[in-house]
C-alpha cells in the first residue's frame, strides 16, 4: 500500500515534466496540433462530466463554446481588449448565460433537459447567424488576432507565431481547469451533486437546494466550455456559427460516455483516446464519425460505465474473488 502512495504522485510529477518538455522532442508542428486538440477536448469532456454527475445531460456544450469564442473574438477585435481578458470574459459570459437559462432549464428532467439544450444551441447558432452587424453572420469572423505576447525579459518571449507557444498556452489552461475541477471533485460539492443525481426528492427534503446545485454544475461546466471556445477562436483565427455545432456537443458526450463518468480520469481518458483515433486513420477522414459511432455503440452495449468502469471491474475481480 505504501509503495503505491509513493509512486502515484511521483508518476504524476513525471508525467507533468514529460508534458512540459514535450515540445523539445516533438518537432512536427502537426503533432503539437494534435496535443493542443487533446487539451481542448479534455477541458470540454471534464467540464461536461461536471454537468453529468448532477444528473443532467447537456447537448449544448458546443453552443457554450461558440458563446465563449465569439465573446472573446469580438471583445478583442472591436473593443481592443487584451486576449487574456477576452478569454476570461468568454468563459464568464458563457457562465452567466448558463446561469440565466439554467434556473428555468434544470426544472426539466433527463431527456427533456437534453432537448431544451438542443433547442438552446440552435437558437444560439441562429442568433449568431442573424446578428450580422456584430458577428459577421454566416461568414463569421476572420483573422482573429493571436493572443497578446507574453514576455519575460531575458527568459522567454511568446508571441504566438509558433505553435509551441499555443501548446504551452493550452497546457496551462488544461492544468488550471483540471486543478479547479479536481478541487471540486474532492470536496463536499461533488457528494452533494451525486446525491442530487441519485435521489433529488430525498436531497431536497434534507435541505439541499437541488435547483441551485444543478445550476451550479451546469454553469460551471459551461464556463469551461466558454474558455475552451475562446482559446479555439484565437488558435484557429476563424470563427463561424457552425464552428462548434451540434457535432461538437455530440463528441463531448461521446468522450465522457466512452471514458466513463464514475471517476475523474474518465473524461480525460475518453477525450485523449478519441482525439487520437481520427489521427490514426487520417487517410479515411470521412469515415471518422462512423468509427466514433461504432465505438459509442460498443461502449453502451459492453462497457456501460465507460473505460474507467471497465478498469474498476478488472481491479475488483483481480483483488477479491467471490465478491458478490
Amino acid at each position: 500500500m505504501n509503495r503505491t502512495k509513493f509512486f502515484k504522485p511521483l508518476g504524476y510529477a513525471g508525467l507533468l515534466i514529460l508534458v512540459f518538455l514535450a515540445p523539445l522532442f516533438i518537432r512536427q508542428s502537426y503533432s503539437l496540433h494534435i496535443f493542443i486538440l487533446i487539451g481542448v477536448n479534455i477541458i470540454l469532456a471534464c467540464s461536461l462530466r461536471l454537468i453529468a454527475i448532477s444528473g443532467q445531460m447537456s447537448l449544448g456544450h458546443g453552443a457554450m463554446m461558440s458563446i465563449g469564442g465569439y465573446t472573446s473574438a469580438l471583445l478583442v477585435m472591436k473593443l481592443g481588449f487584451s486576449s487574456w481578458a477576452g478569454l476570461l470574459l468568454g468563459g464568464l459570459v458563457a457562465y452567466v448565460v448558463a446561469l440565466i437559462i439554467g434556473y428555468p432549464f434544470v426544472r426539466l428532467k433527463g431527456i427533456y433537459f437534453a432537448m431544451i439544450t438542443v433547442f438552446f444551441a440552435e437558437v444560439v447558432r441562429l442568433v449568431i447567424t442573424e446578428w450580422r452587424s456584430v458577428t459577421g453572420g454566416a461568414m463569421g469572423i476572420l483573422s482573429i488576432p493571436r493572443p497578446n505576447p507574453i514576455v519575460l525579459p531575458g527568459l522567454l518571449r511568446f508571441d504566438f507565431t509558433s505553435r509551441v507557444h499555443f501548446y504551452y498556452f493550452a497546457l496551462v489552461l488544461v492544468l488550471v481547469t483540471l486543478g479547479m475541477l479536481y478541487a471540486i471533485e474532492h470536496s463536499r460539492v461533488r457528494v452533494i451533486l451525486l446525491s442530487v443525481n441519485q435521489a433529488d426528492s430525498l436531497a431536497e427534503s434534507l435541505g439541499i437546494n437541488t435547483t441551485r446545485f444543478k445550476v451550479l454544475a451546469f454553469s460551471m461546466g459551461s464556463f469551461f466550455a466558454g474558455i475552451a471556445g475562446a482559446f479555439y477562436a484565437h488558435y484557429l483565427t476563424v470563427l463561424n456559427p457552425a464552428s462548434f455545432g451540434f457535432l461538437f456537443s455530440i463528441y463531448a458526450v461521446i468522450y465522457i460516455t466512452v471514458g466513463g463518468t464514475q471517476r475523474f480520469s474518465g473524461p480525460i481518458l475518453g477525450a485523449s483516446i478519441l482525439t487520437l483515433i481520427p489521427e490514426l486513420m487520417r487517410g479515411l477522414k470521412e469515415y471518422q464519425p462512423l468509427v466514433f459511432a461504432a465505438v459509442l455503440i460498443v461502449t453502451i452495449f459492453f462497457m456501460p460505465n465507460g473505460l474507467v468502469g471497465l478498469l474498476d471491474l478488472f481491479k475488483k475481480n483481480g483483488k477479491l474473488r467471490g465478491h458478490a
Partner: protein
Amino acid sequence: MDTSTFVQSVINGLVAGWIYILVALGLTLVLSIMGIVQFAHGEMYMLGAYGAYYLGTVAGLNYFVALVSSAFLVGLLGIVIERFLFRPFHSQPERAVIIALALILLLQTASLVGFGGTTRSVASPLPGIFTICGITLSWERVMVILFSIALVTALIIFIGRTKIGQAMVAISQNREVASLQGINIDRISSIGMFLGCALAAAAGALIGCIVSVTPFMGSFALMKGIAVIVLGGLGSIPGAIIGGLILGLIDGLVSPLLSASMAAIFGFVIIILILLLRPQGILGHE
C-alpha cells in the same frame, strides 16, 4: 405584404407545417410505444428523400411509387434498428439516447460517403404552376399538402380503428398492463417503429422536390419534429397537428417578412417558453 405574397406564404407555411406534422407523428409514435426519443429520426427523413431521389429520379420509377417504396425501405431499416439497437434499452432511456446519437453519426456519415455531398433534388411529379385569382401557386406544393393530409388521415384511422392501432394506444398508456392483456409488445414495437420511420421518410420524399436533398437535412427535421411534439403535447396526435401547423405557419409567414433564421428563432423561443411554462404542451396530459 400584398395578398399574393400572403397567400403564397400561407401555402408555404402549410407545406412546412404538414411536413413537420408527418415527422412529429413518426417521432411521437416511437416515443409513445417505446419510450425513447429517437434522435436519429431526422436521418430517416433524410434517407426517405434520398430513396425517392434514387428510385424516382435516377432509376426512373414513377414518383409516387418511388415515394412509397422509399418509405417502405426506410421503415424496414427502422425495424432492424429497433430490434438490435433500441430494444435492449427500453428501460434505460438515457442509454437509448446515446445510441440514437451514435445513429445520427452513423447514418449521416454513411450517406455522405455513399451518396456524396452534392446537393440533390427529387424530380417533381407535378412541375409547373397555376393561377387562382391572380395568385400564382405551384402544383407540387399543393400536392405535398394534400398527400400529407391523406397520410395523416390514414394514420389516424389506423390507430383508431384497427386492432394493432389500439394495441399501440394501450402500450403507450400502460406498458405492463398491455402485456398482461396479451399484447405482443415486441411485435407492436416493430410495427410502430416501421410506421414512424416510414412517415419521416415519406416527409423527406415529399419535401425533396421542393428543398435540396443533402446528407445533413435530417437535423432540421429532428428539431422541428421535437419542437412540434413539445408544443403540441407528447403523445397527442391532435396536439402534433396543431403544433405543426402553428410552427409551419410561423415559418411560412415570418420568413418573407424577416428571414428564415428569425422565423426559426421565433419558433424555438416559443417552444422554450412552452417547455418552461407548460411542460406538457398544448394538449398533453400531466
